[in-house]
């Protein structure tokens, strides 16, 4: 369980009146798919950095399965448990080749050397890059680099996986492929997915949505409940997918269509 207790965060040197995060209280279970939604500057990425101790809260506390991020001797264990895939595919790889990059994290946690290459192959296999273990990282496309970043963190068997706008620099095709693969992996290998985005269509099947606005939580609940609140999306500067807008309009016409209806089902229904 991840617990944030009265967490506030203010960047050093910034405006002393502006909080990147203000008075956040959260509990995140270790199996859920939770989406953090909000426009740029709402505090989503700051939150992700607090979760594995990359930043420490200015006030309050963050604890991961009972380990507090302000205890420096517990940070390795926390970071092993909470892994993050960041936005930019170019700045997450340390190794020159794919195998070396995945081995980097394993090497940091003291993974036994005799098993390391097997683990590297396993992780590359998860993302469909098993054939490319000796390729140079800079020869990969953006989508492949992001898959590699995912493989590198999955190799460490995290309990919580944070995706910090991990698809925002990918083209639509690579984005679809990445998401499809992510859900397939999660099906085989369960972990809590903490998904930070402002693309609603990527998280329609999440268990929980948390809306952030100006560093505060403004809504927290199941997507089916929150989707009914059109004003919330407008307030948080988020674009509602066309399909959802259509369902909204149909609801107003008195038609009872479930929110998670796919385009094909919707056409059939209509």
């Amino acid at each position, binding site marked *: 369980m991840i617990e944030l207790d009265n967490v506030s965060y203010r960047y050093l040197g910034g405006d002393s009146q502006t909080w990147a995060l203000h008075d956040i209280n959260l509990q995140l279970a270790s199996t859920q798919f939770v989406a953090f939604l909000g426009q740029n500057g709402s505090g989503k990425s700051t939150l992700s*950095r607090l979760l*594995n101790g*990359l930043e420490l809260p200015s006030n309050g506390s963050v604890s991961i399965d009972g380990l507090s991020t302000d205890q420096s001797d517990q940070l*390795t264990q926390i*970071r*092993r448990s909470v*892994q*993050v895939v*960041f936005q*930019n595919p*170019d*700045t*997450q*790889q*340390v*190794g*020159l*080749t794919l195998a*070396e990059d995945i*081995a*980097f*994290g*394993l*090497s*940091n*946690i*003291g*993974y*036994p*050397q005799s098993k*390391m290459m097997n683990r590297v192959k396993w992780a590359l296999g998860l993302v469909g890059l098993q054939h490319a273990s*000796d390729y*140079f*990282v*800079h*020869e990969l496309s953006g989508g492949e680099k992001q898959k590699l970043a995912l493989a*590198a*963190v999955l190799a*460490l068997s995290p309990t919580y996986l944070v995706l910090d706008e991990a698809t925002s620099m990918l083209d639509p095709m690579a984005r679809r492929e990445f998401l499809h693969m992510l859900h397939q992996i999660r099906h085989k290998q369960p972990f809590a997915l903490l998904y930070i985005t402002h693309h609603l269509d990527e998280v329609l099947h999440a268990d929980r949505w948390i809306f952030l606005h100006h560093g505060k939580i403004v809504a927290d609940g199941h997507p089916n409940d929150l989707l009914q609140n059109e004003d919330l999306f407008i307030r948080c500067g988020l674009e509602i997918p066309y399909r959802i807008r259509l369902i909204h309009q149909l609801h107003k016409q008195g038609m009872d269509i479930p929110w998670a209806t796919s385009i094909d089902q919707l056409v059939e229904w209509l």
Partner: protein
Amino acid sequence: MGSQFIFFKQKNSWLEQWDPRMKIVVIFLYAISLFVHQNTLFKAIQIVLLICLWAVAKLSWRMLGWTLLSLSLFFVTTMVYHMLFSAGSQTLQIFGFHLSKVGIFSGISMCLQIAGIVLLLSLLVRTTSPIILAEGLERLLSPFQKWKFPIHEATMMFSIALRFIPILTEEFEKVRKAQIARGNGFHRGKIRARITGLFPILMPMFILSILRAKELAASMESRCYDSNEKRTPIRQYRLKLQDYIIFICSVVLVIISVIQKS
């Protein structure tokens, strides 16, 4: 783009299988022998041996040709300098110039030395992955860590720098083209205008590099990197019989060179 900075291409040659520590030591000893030995014929034999190793490494002859051709200006300058300015009683007269015979031999000797060093380094970087090279260096220099020399940090910086060269090259191209599109004329005009025109490229590059370094540091930390903690080595290096034999041969070579010189 930028992959030209990484000279290594996997060829599964015998030289690639060498232990990197031994490879570095042997190349160092070979370089010493090249510099210590006075006999030009002996140096020529050493160069022939290096060319044989080039073949063993399955490297292309064209690449060897380019490597040596790139040194041609240096060879010519060295030869001319030695022939004209070396002392010696025996001289040859060519086109009215008095050329020293000793100078000719010392010029050839110097050219062979330089060619040898370049071939040695070329063999090293073309048959060893940069990361393996960094690991080899780290392990060779590890005794210095006892005296607080930041060997691990230095080799980590080296391997990260290599990883980032292609990315920064790509960024440089993007910024350069963006500035050209905005009318920056650094690629034409007088030298001063060209130099001042470079600032609008260097400044964004500098900022981008810092941002990238910051993001990479976060990514490394997030993947449990701590320079103070002991890490599992990615590869296990074990010296084999062939490594010892090659090492002994190299030591013998250096001893012969020293005896010959003295």
